[in-house]
């Protein structure tokens, strides 16, 4: 970053803010006008992954901590919301044909006679909303505390988060009576009596989602521009020097990991609301590492790049899976190899290299729109 730390946050219409306004215009005006509700809902689904990608930009791009378990937090956030919606859909009147009315249908199928204790609080929307953020953040705090205080990082951290993603998936699939098993929690209907399955509801939820995303981008931008954000970059590049300067490196890492977890969880909750179900297929190893590629394609250093990258990869996935399903894994594999070997700074890097200089010629002040300076790949990776 080229700004001084005390430059005011919204002080002037600089490149980042201009970029965010452009994204906001695209999401809130252009896409709703140009797409039918089915496709718009799909874009809304993609955008929920962008929350995860934002978290990864901070966690991996800024602080150099690669978590391969972001699906855990996406999933927990989604499940918290799904549990509330499922309880509302399982009122005693709606489920009177079950042998135990008033509990979710999958519990009835698994011969459960009463609601498990940890489902009880999810009758309250307030509790569910708080839990969406608090449970993943708490989990991330515990994992982060255990690992970063012992200076476990890099590859070991990545593998252990991956193991956690595996554990959680096996747990959810195995405990069918409590979690809905492999099918997940399905058949969600209303939110406080408001039917979330109608087209109008989907439109409203899309706008809520887009607004939340813009809010989260601003929040991330604030974090990155704060002194904290600079310390994160410093500890990514030379961790020992930060430690010798008297900072407790672990605390910063724990904070950014929890923050990324909370962001992912918000995305998960919005996913449940818009798509109408939650299942372990969004939790495991494969979806978690796919989320990393969203961020990497956009550019691991750029907040806006992450959003565009998410949209682009998911759009390509839908298009290819519809017409050439066998090509998709080739494309995905090539993306992984490509972003590592050919364009480590993703779309944002390409933008800065090729488009920004030309824009700069048109305008007196160069647009640093997509975010951060290009750094050599070897410092980004270690």
């Amino acid at each position, binding site marked *: 970053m080229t700004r001084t730390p005390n430059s005011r946050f919204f002080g002037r219409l600089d490149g980042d803010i201009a970029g965010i306004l452009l994204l906001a215009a695209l999401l809130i005006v252009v896409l709703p006008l140009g797409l039918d509700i089915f496709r718009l809902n799909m874009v809304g689904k993609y955008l929920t992954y962008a929350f995860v990608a934002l978290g990864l930009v901070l966690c991996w791009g800024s602080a150099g901590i690669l978590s391969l378990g972001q699906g855990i937090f996406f999933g927990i956030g989604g499940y918290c919301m799904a549990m509330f919606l499922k309880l509302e859909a399982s009122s005693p009147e709606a489920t009177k044909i079950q042998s135990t009315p008033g509990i979710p249908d999958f519990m009835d199928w698994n011969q459960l006679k009463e609601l498990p204790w940890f489902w009880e609080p999810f009758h309250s929307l307030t509790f569910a909303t708080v839990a969406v953020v608090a449970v993943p953040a708490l989990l991330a705090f515990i994992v982060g505390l255990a690992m970063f205080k012992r200076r476990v990082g*890099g*590859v070991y951290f990545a*593998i252990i988060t991956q*193991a956690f993603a*595996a554990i959680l998936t*096996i747990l959810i699939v195995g405990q069918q009576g409590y979690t809905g098993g492999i099918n997940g929690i399905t058949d969600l209907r209303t939110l406080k009596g408001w039917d979330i399955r109608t087209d109008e509801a989907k439109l409203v939820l899309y706008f809520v989602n887009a607004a939340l995303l813009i809010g989260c981008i601003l929040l991330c931008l604030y974090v990155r521009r704060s002194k904290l954000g600079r310390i994160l970059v410093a500890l990514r590049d030379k961790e020992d020097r930060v430690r010798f300067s008297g900072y407790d490196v672990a605390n910063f890492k724990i904070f950014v990991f929890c923050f990324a977890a909370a962001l992912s969880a918000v995305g998960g909750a919005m996913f449940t609301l818009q798509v109408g179900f939650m299942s372990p297929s969004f939790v495991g190893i494969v979806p978690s590492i796919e989320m990393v590629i969203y961020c990497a394609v956009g550019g691991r250093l750029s907040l806006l790049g992450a959003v565009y990258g998410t949209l682009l990869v998911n759009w390509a996935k839908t298009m290819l899976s519809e017409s050439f399903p066998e090509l998709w894994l080739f494309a995905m594999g090539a993306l992984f190899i490509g972003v590592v070997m050919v364009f480590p700074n993703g779309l944002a890097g390409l933008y800065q290299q090729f488009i920004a200089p030309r824009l700069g010629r048109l305008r007196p002040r160069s647009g640093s729109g997509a975010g951060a300076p290009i750094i050599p*790949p070897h410092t980004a990776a270690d």
Partner: protein
Amino acid sequence: MFEGYSLAELGSIFAMQGFAGLILFSVFVLMALGLAIIFGQMGVINMAHGEFMILGAYVTYLCSNFISSTAPALFPAYFFIAMALAFLASGALGMLVEWAMIRFLYRRPLDTLLATWGLSLILQQIFRSVFGAREVGVVLPDWLMGSVAVTDTIEVPINGLFVMGLTMTITVVIYAVMFRSRWGQGVRAVMQNRVMAGAVGINTEKVDRYTFGLGCGIAGVAGSAFTMVGSTGPTSGQLYIVDTFLVVVFGGAQSLIGTIASAFTISQAQSTMEFFLSGSTAKVLTLLTVVVILMLRPQGLFVLKVRR
């Protein structure tokens, strides 16, 4: 969880489950040996290791089909031919991958992780296009069928015994290659101090390439062994990769003894618990225990002292 079983029954259960665990242990060890060599020596995280194993399994499958149709007389011994071919195929692919991709990514372990994950996706899709999405199995020759009755209640399948014997042989061979041969000395020299090894005339690039090839080749042999105890599908390798990484990390990345010890612990724990609890609970408990122990002891069970 033990009520309802007599002491003799419990003894038999533990023996049978212990043996089932030993087969899992064999697959773990063969996978983990290659992974440990690659990770320990070069700091490369090879997420495509499972796919190298599956390549070996498919080579074995092809080989068994080919030999049973063209030279049935050789069929009882086809497995040894298949194993050699599997080693060569996976090893050659490994060296190609090292030359095309990995050598640009040394010192960037996280990037090798992502790139090899991409490679694993591509290989999976190739397997699916070539061999189909259905799982395939090989026909075992007669002498590998059946089981040996040790007592009235304990039976040991012969193919399991064979796989274990194979694992032990390969482990001894790897040990000899790594710790008793001139070439292994070079590998260990590069592992401990790359610059110095280069300065005394070891061609470190060549050592890297052959080491990566060796690791992948062992994975191919693991795949060969895998066909004897399970059927092979395009994504079978992915099921084992995280477990195997935990085995390697748990054992201490640079110690072969540690890798074997941790493979033994993890496979035995999982297999014994599987009988008394459901399979998924056993797996969750095993993985969780390993992860918690790793949090308490991040360097793993056995540590080789290396100056960095």
